[in-house]
């Protein structure tokens, strides 16, 4: 590959807009309950002292509460902190309303997570009105049409990466652009960790070659970047910072999976097995709902002491029934050599094929099995999730509850319409 490294900042106009809903879950809770507005609140996976804070409100952030902190730590920093459990349905509805609103400006709307969208306005009439004008209008419409308490930070740039970087420049409620005129001034203010994708280890590598700021990174000879990253990543950073697009990748569906962070540290198979069943039931239903079958299964478990064990297996037959998937995953489950308190369990299926490719077998009764699962899934659609469940799942009503997946927004519509 030939690296073209002597490049100036791109001449391309800023047609990409990145929209980030500020303190998403917490702000939506404050939108729903006006009595919480102006107060430090946090949405946490569990409201117990060890629960993980997933979204502090803007007021809580100002007092030092951060994502990833334990509830206990948050309350130490902010004794009046109101902790709320997540309400995924509400967040998905806001996501869908926002998506619908943004589609008035362009059909090139790409959800990046539950609270982040990318828009490409190139070639759409809205672009001719000016990106800043459109940005301000979107902010006003969100307040008028979705919720008066909701604020978004909007970034504009010539590529996805710079649009996202611009959206991080001012929070909350920002509207910023990185372009040919201002990139130098902005890069001089930023350190490498301000860039999405650069954390501690990469910063140390950059520091070793004398790069302290993003401006240093931009002006450094390519050889220095190569020395720091030792990979094609060096070239990608070179292009990103110059406004060239290299992140326009849409990932297809490769697997289905569900995981669960246990609030109680179970270690015995008889306690963990019903949770495993529920995880498999959820995964199996999603697999069939999207008309897939699989030829691979995977089980992963992490323990309270920090240990981790996982195993995957390819299967000879195409699997689609939750029962078969459970049988295979259970074999992995009992192979785990450790019996100690569990923090997290995860199951997934991979090597997907369309379910229409099912091979009829002479003795196995594939059609009978398929019809049975069609009936079971129909009962689920009529009566709701877990209308019919295996007896193994008894006692798991409060386990494996609905959660928002980090980054994954492929099935948001399904949750609302089902």
């Amino acid at each position, binding site marked *: 590959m030939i690296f073209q490294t002597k490049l100036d900042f791109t001449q391309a106009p800023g047609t990409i807009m990145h929209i980030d809903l500020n303190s998403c879950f917490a702000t939506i809770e404050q939108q*729903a309950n006006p009595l919480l507005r102006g107060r430090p609140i946090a949405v946490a996976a569990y409201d117990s002292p060890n629960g993980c804070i997933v979204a502090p409100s803007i007021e809580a952030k100002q007092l030092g509460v951060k994502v990833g902190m334990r509830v206990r730590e948050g309350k130490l920093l902010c004794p*009046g*902190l109101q902790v709320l459990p997540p309400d995924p349905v509400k967040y998905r509805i806001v996501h869908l309303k926002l998506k619908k609103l943004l589609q008035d400006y362009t059909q090139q709307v790409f959800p990046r997570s539950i609270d982040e969208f990318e828009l490409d306005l190139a070639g759409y009439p809205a672009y001719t009105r000016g990106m800043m004008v459109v940005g301000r209008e979107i902010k006003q419409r969100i307040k008028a049409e979705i919720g008066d308490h909701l604020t978004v930070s909007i970034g504009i740039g010539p590529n996805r990466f710079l649009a996202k970087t611009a959206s991080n420049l001012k929070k909350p409620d920002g509207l910023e652009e990185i372009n040919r005129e201002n990139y130098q001034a902005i890069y001089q203010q930023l350190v490498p960790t301000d860039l999405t994708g650069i954390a501690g280890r990469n910063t140390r590598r950059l520091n070793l070659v004398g790069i302290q700021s993003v401006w240093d990174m931009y002006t450094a000879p390519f050889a220095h970047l190569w020395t720091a990253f030792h990979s094609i990543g060096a070239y990608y950073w070179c292009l990103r910072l110059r406004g060239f697009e290299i992140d326009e990748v849409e990932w297809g569906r490769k697997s289905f999976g569900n995981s669960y962070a246990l609030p109680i540290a179970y270690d015995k198979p008889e306690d963990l097995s019903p949770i495993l069943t529920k995880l498999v039931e959820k995964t199996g239903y999603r697999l069939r709902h999207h008309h897939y079958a699989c030829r691979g299964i995977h089980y992963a478990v992490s323990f309270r002491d920090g240990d981790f064990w996982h195993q995957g297996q390819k299967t000879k037959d195409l699997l689609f029934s939750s029962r078969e998937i459970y049988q295979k995953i259970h074999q992995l489950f009992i192979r785990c050599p450790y019996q100690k308190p569990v923090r997290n369990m995860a199951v997934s299926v991979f090597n997907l094929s369309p379910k229409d490719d099912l091979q009829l077998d002479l003795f196995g009764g594939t059609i009978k099995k398929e019809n049975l699962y069609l009936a079971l899934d129909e009962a689920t659609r009529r009566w*709701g999730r877990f209308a019919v469940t295996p007896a193994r799942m008894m006692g798991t009503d409060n386990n494996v509850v609905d959660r928002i997946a980090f980054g994954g927004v492929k099935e948001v519509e399904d949750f609302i319409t*089902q």
Partner: protein
Amino acid sequence: MIQTIDAPISVITAYNHLTSQFIPVKLKWHSREYTIITIGFHHHYRQGRTLFHVFSVATEEMFFRLELDTETLMWRVTEIADDLPN
């Protein structure tokens, strides 16, 4: 303080045919009548085929999460909060 419950509740609603808006305006809880001042958020979800409409509403000093089962047309209150922290 926020309290999660699940109980039937009496709700007075209004429908405006010009704006196609359907909103709860008053509710009666524990023999006391509350006038709804703000509808913070309205959303819906499905449980199987049954559609539920959820109204997060605030009165002068209380918050109620009201759910309307569109199959039975019954209202339930699923969350109550006052403006005191937990």
